[in-house]
């Protein structure tokens, strides 16, 4: 689902995405547990295809459980050579992601 230019992953619904760029941002957020402001790193992936449809959107995540799954592809931006099918399940700290990497035809 695309809200404006933000990709929102829906629980249990696989989304197929292609990324063309990324950056790591530092954002100040309010810690849900303590209520205090805290700085977190956010992985922002620029999306140009969502479910085989051209879009100009971005997917952001603070969750290292998801970000780490892309870690190998970030330094050389080799995510450009793959489509990723991401399935998000669960709530809050119990949320998990299954990420399928499909090589694009050369």
């Amino acid at each position, binding site marked *: 689902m695309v809200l404006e230019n933000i990709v929102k992953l829906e629980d*249990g619904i696989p989304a197929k995405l292609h990324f063309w760029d990324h950056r790591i941002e530092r954002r100040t957020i309010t810690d849900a547990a303590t209520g205090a402001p805290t700085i977190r790193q956010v992985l922002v992936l620029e999306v140009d295809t969502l479910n085989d449809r051209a879009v100009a959107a971005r997917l952001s995540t603070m969750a290292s459980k998801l970000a780490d799954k892309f870690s190998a592809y970030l330094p050389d931006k080799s995510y450009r050579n793959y489509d990723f099918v991401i399935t998000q399940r669960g709530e809050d700290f119990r949320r998990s992601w299954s990420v399928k990497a499909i090589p694009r035809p050369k």
Partner: protein
Amino acid sequence: MARKTRQVETRLTAEYIKQYYSEFPSILGQPLGVVPTSLMEQEGYQRALGIMRPFRPEADALVILPRHLLLIEAKVWHVINGLAKLPMYKSLVPVTPELREYMPREVLMELVVGWTSPNLEIMARDHGIAVKVFCPDWLTKVVQGMHHYWTKEYREERERKLGLREYFGVE
């Protein structure tokens, strides 16, 4: 309380797959096992998978090879746990609804570790598991730390670091 462990196994798995299986489709975090047909009929396919999620084990990774499915567990600390899981997970692959489209394929197993030992190799061989040592530069420090974990010097250094993290309230 400051966190005492580092989450490195997902990164290790991702880098290993990129290095050795980059030309094949792969899945990081694959739930395994049956989802009751009655639940699927009642709730629908996707919702049933969601309801069953907490009750199904999850493999670190699965690579879809032309004639095989390759199950991968990556372990840095509790390597025997990874070894023990793989044959159990293998038994669930043929009944996993998300993998039905890839069957029938023979299932192979690989345990990815930063270091190995003769005992690990013996146990793995006995269960048909290939042990793959994969230790990128960033992991070397973690592995060294693990091997020195119970030495006096490392214990003191660890307590000093944890104390500072606790004092400054950082993770």
